[in-house]
């Protein structure tokens, strides 16, 4: 991930870990999820810079967009739907948290929030009894040509 993407991801991590959320989890900045699917057990949180795009903004500047993914994973027990509902609510809570704030420590502005539910992937749910939820934050930053 680029230097600016790392800066934004770090700002998101710091903001999340300072927040008062309904579930207790420490978020870490990662390149890939730090635990293998089969090893995930307790609630785990990670922040990954997923993508970066640049488009011409003017003759002198480019507008960069950074997708920062906040991932939440947990192995569920016998009552899959009830546990998954609670975790889905937590993912939505994280999304709602960022609707009213822009992480400090970065001049990039938050412009979009997506909720992704890759639970339809057999590998997560059926093979590993794993709930996975992702909040994708998209930040925009205009950078003048040097």
């Amino acid at each position: 991930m680029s230097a600016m993407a790392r800066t934004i991801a770090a700002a998101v991590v710091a903001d999340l870990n300072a927040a008062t959320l309904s579930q207790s989890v420490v978020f870490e900045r990662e390149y890939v999820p730090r635990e293998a699917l089969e090893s995930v057990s307790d609630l785990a949180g990670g922040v990954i810079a997923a993508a970066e795009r640049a488009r011409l903004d003017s003759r002198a500047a480019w507008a960069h967009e950074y997708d920062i993914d906040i991932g939440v994973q947990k192995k569920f027990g016998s009552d899959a739907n009830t546990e998954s509902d609670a975790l889905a609510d937590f993912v939505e809570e994280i999304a709602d948290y960022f609707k009213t704030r822009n992480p400090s420590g970065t001049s990039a502005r938050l412009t979009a929030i997506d909720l992704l539910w890759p639970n339809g992937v057999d590998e997560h749910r059926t093979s590993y009894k794993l709930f996975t939820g992702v909040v994708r934050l998209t930040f925009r930053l205009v950078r003048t040509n040097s």
Partner: protein
Amino acid sequence: MAGEILGRDCYLYYNSATHASPTWVLIANAVDVSLSGDKNYGDVSSRVSAFKKNKAGLLDMGLSFGYRYKQGVTDSVFDALRAKALASTPTEMFIADGPSGTAGSEGIRAFMDLSFGRDEPLEDGVLCQFECKHVVAYESGSMVEPDWHTTT
């Protein structure tokens, strides 16, 4: 480079000095520059021909461009353009296909009056939209006409 070019490869300037001895100031933060040239026609038809006959009348010329606005940043170019717009100061513009300091750069050069507005879209950059219209201008008692200017 010779050949087809993109809009981003062009250059827009305003003159901060005189027509006779210009100082071209680059408008770097321009977005989507558009030069328009309209022409009126007079009807000179008669029974001589079954076709309607037109004769060219007066030319009109306009220029529009967006300017990417920045908050809290010293921007002398925007400050100058804004002041000229608010004071209705005729301003010579050069809509060039290359840098003014490079010989062979070409484009229309004309005195314009500027006006502007500001768009503030929810999720996109704030843009000041400048609309310019060719106006009469004199220098040393002589009218300065628009021309196709080539830098030397």
